[in-house]
């Protein structure tokens, strides 16, 4: 299924073909300890179940200085 992923730094939505959050994080090379995950506006864990057209955001937990 297709998942819409918002990229914080480029501020763009990209579409990714995947079934789990873990799969997406691996494709995008995102460490799950370094982000919080927002699915359709709600905070979720990396185990949350995805469905087609879900919107995901990975928000970096590292502060910028």
């Amino acid at each position: 299924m297709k998942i819409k992923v918002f990229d914080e730094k480029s501020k763009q939505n990209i579409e990714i073909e995947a079934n789990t959050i873990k799969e997406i994080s691996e494709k995008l090379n995102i460490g799950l300890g370094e982000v919080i995950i927002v699915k359709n506006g709600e905070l979720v864990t990396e185990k949350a179940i995805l469905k087609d057209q879900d919107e995901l955001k990975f928000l970096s937990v590292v502060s910028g200085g």
Partner: protein
Amino acid sequence: MTCRKCRETPVIHLPNSNISLCKKCFLRYFEKKVRKTVRIYKLFNKGDTVGIALSGGKDSMVTLNILKSLAEQQRTTKIIAIAIDEGIKGYRDETLKFAKKFCEENQIPLKITSYKKEFGMTLDQILKKLEIKPCSVCGVFRRYLLNKEAQRNKIDILATGHNLDDETQTILMNQFRNNVAASSRLGPLTGIKDDKKFIRRIKPLYFLTEKEIMTYAFIKELATPFNECPYAENSFRGKVRDALNKLNSEYPSTKNSIIHSFLETLPLLKESYKKQDISYCNTCGEPTSKEKCQTCKYLELIKK
């Protein structure tokens, strides 16, 4: 997967204890952990005026938010937020907007002071004039001003947003650089007791990870939009952070073990480095270990 305590949908998984928590249980867990840190390490006493170094980033916003509710419970504890405006266009002006708004809405006194007001130049201007590492001069000036502003406002103790990730990184960096003396000045409570010139520092978020703090900030709507200082270099810290995060994802108790073994040795470290007593800068009178403090040295360069 449901919340370990109440079967609601979880918002976070805590790798160290391998449990998942829902929003409500997570907030309770988080606040309890801060209260415990304050209590066990006696971070402040009833009746104290507690300053919070506020940058507008998530760590300091969460620190302020939690200390505010603690102060309300204790009634006699007063809080004051202190913000330093370094003068970094497009960065600090943005995060400070958020800090100001929050303090206004929550009736928290906020004192803002700036490099421009205090040293005559913004950080942007200083860096145009001098070829120095941005974070070196910025860090020295910030520490100096925070201490000064805390004294002006009769603050007993100054809280910062340092967290478990910051601290474990710093411990390792000091090891890698063979600078154990610097580690003797770490811990949840730092500074020298009864030194009138040096305001002690506390880290109420000492045992919480960046991820936990970001989760708390998101739930409480304290998270600022992603924004990075244009001068951030941090190359060594960045590498240590990446290595630690990688290790911690494979061995989930890594960061916790570092902190706890460090805390076991800290009293010994403090004991063996305490002889380096503090003296005062012969130019400005602020505490330093040398004759002239680093702030005054930089100021001389700037004013040339």
